[in-house]
């Protein structure tokens, strides 16, 4: 679905229950999955997402589902492969180091065209890094991570309500394309509490209703889920067929949100937790008379290039703000294609840019003091981070 400039809800058209509850992000994600018909979860503990497997271990047996604690994230993602391939609606969650271990499995899921939903509550890396929120797995999520020419459809929600609504969409999209979908959250979204309401429940699918699922051939033609194609012509054809699917997703699944865009001359670009910080900074800047708007990608892949086209004729500059050293900013630059200046501000490792820090960069951008992206890295290296 394409989002209009003012359409904030990702679930317009779905009846929202009146009941509003206060919930932790991780628990809301788990409950949303169950209400979206998910009955299988394979997990391995890692902070800051432990409430998801814990919630699933408690709740899934109540609804006739299955929770398995795997011996590793490597095993967990391959259990997802088996379960998704047998027609189950499956969720898996982890945080950055665990998601790294899943990359081989994710590549296989894409190659064999098995649907599932993967949640990454990002923490700081590289290596063991830290346990505080981060957005430094953007490249891994949107550009590959595993081997081969594949794509994940990646959502970057910025509130607990949006995570819940996107969970419903994520399962539908995963099954529509027979492809894994990733919800890219961060430790902040997982750990904070917000009021949330849940859409109507979707019943779990009957695994045997999927003609491609391996559930026993029942005397008919045997089915095969495989990603090995040794014949170069055959593998080439398979890859281009996957690309057709991805092109279709680019047409049909792109989502973004724009705030205060109508009169804006300067634009903040941010997703997830950072979009919330930017929203506060935008309000501060506007009270100083600076006409700032916010472009908030909701799908990180496919990236909402369209949002930039719409404002480029009057945009004086874009400031991309991330909890990373600059990853999404590359997609912003690809979208802008040199037609306006693109600036960057980021912090890492659980250090979250605060509104005042963003405001300072907005002021600098407007007064022409913001360094180019290349110079920016030199300045940060010189100690100017906050």
């Amino acid at each position: 679905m394409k989002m209009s400039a003012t359409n904030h809800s990702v679930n317009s058209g779905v009846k929202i229950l009146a009941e509003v509850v206060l919930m932790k992000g991780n628990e809301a994600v788990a409950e949303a999955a169950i209400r979206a018909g998910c009955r299988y979860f394979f997990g391995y503990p890692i902070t800051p997402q432990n409430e998801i497997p814990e919630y699933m271990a408690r709740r899934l047996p109540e609804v006739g589902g299955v929770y398995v604690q795997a011996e590793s994230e490597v095993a967990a993602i391959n259990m997802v492969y088996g379960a998704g391939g047998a027609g189950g609606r499956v969720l898996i969650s982890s945080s950055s180091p665990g998601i790294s271990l899943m990359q081989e499995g994710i590549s296989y899921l894409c190659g064999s065209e098995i649907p599932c939903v993967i949640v990454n509550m990002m923490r700081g890396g590289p290596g063991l890094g830290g346990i505080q929120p981060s957005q430094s797995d953007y490249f891994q999520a949107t550009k590959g991570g595993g081997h081969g020419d594949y794509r994940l459809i990646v959502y970057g929600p910025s509130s607990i309500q949006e995570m819940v609504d996107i969970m419903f969409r994520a399962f539908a999209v995963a099954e529509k394309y027979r492809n894994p979908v990733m919800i890219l959250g961060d430790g902040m979204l997982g750990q904070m509490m917000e009021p949330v309401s849940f859409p109507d429940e979707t019943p779990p699918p009957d695994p045997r209703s999927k003609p491609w699922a391996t559930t026993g051939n029942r005397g008919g033609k045997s089915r095969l889920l495989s990603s090995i194609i040794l014949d170069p012509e055959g593998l080439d054809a398979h890859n281009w067929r996957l690309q057709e699917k991805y092109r279709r997703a680019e047409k049909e699944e792109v989502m973004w949100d724009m705030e205060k865009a109508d009169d804006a001359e300067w634009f903040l670009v941010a997703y997830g937790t950072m979009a919330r910080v930017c929203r506060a900074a935008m309000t501060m800047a506007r009270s100083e008379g600076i006409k700032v708007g916010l472009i908030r990608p909701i799908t990180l892949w496919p990236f909402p290039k369209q949002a930039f086209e719409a404002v480029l004729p009057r945009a004086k500059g874009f400031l991309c703000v991330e909890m990373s050293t600059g990853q999404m900013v590359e997609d912003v630059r690809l979208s802008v294609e040199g037609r306006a200046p693109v600036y960057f501000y980021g912090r890492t490792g659980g250090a979250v840019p605060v509104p005042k820090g963003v405001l300072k960069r907005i002021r600098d951008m407007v007064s022409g003091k913001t360094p180019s992206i290349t110079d920016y890295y030199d300045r940060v290296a010189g100690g100017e981070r906050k």
Partner: protein
Amino acid sequence: MKAVYERPRVLKDVATHYCPGCTHGIAHRILAEVIDELGIQGNTVGVASVGCSVFAYNYIDVDFQQAAHGRAPAVATGIKRVVPDTIVFTYQGDGDLASIGAAEVLHAAVRGENITVIFINNAIYGMTGGQMAPTTLEGMRTTTTPLGRQPAIQGYPLRVSELLATVDGAAYIARCSLHNAANIAKAKASIKKAFETQIQKKGFSLVELLSSCPTNWGVPPLEALKWIEEKMIPVFPLGEFKVKEGDAR
């Protein structure tokens, strides 16, 4: 006239890609016979692994998933948990199962996962051209142990069946050999027992099959069979290592 020997229904009528004299084909045949005899063809899902048997689904006519190297027991776990009334088996080589997939097979047994594993131990990595496997015998030459496997450097062969038999969740563990007709008949009986263990929901079952790889051992097929008998069996003794009696869990 009564047919006394014919192609099992489950075995597809196609030529295999296996080398002449390779016992992967025999393992396929007896596995297919068991599936036929138990009448479970329409209700079985196989998991193919990464090794020479990667294309097992081209020969065995049941639903199949192709798993990443070593991960077949995890994939089988996922399938079994979604459709628990379906019979699920994996077919794995010794590089796949005993090296890169050691954790997956061990923990499938620990969980008492109600699946059956067919484990082809040919003491070598066949598909990639004859490198050392965890099961490679002491002194055995492979392309990565050109001087023979030296325990001081490469350690000792791993006995998977004995190891897994120590796990409480394992219900049936046996090691058989494919080097002659009598042993092939025993192997088939063990495979059948393993599937029956699963059908009775008793837990994890595994049958290890000592198998030949004439191509990478660099010996003619008949000599390879003799080599199994003379060299492999002393290191990998045959027998049932675990038979869980009584009711289902």
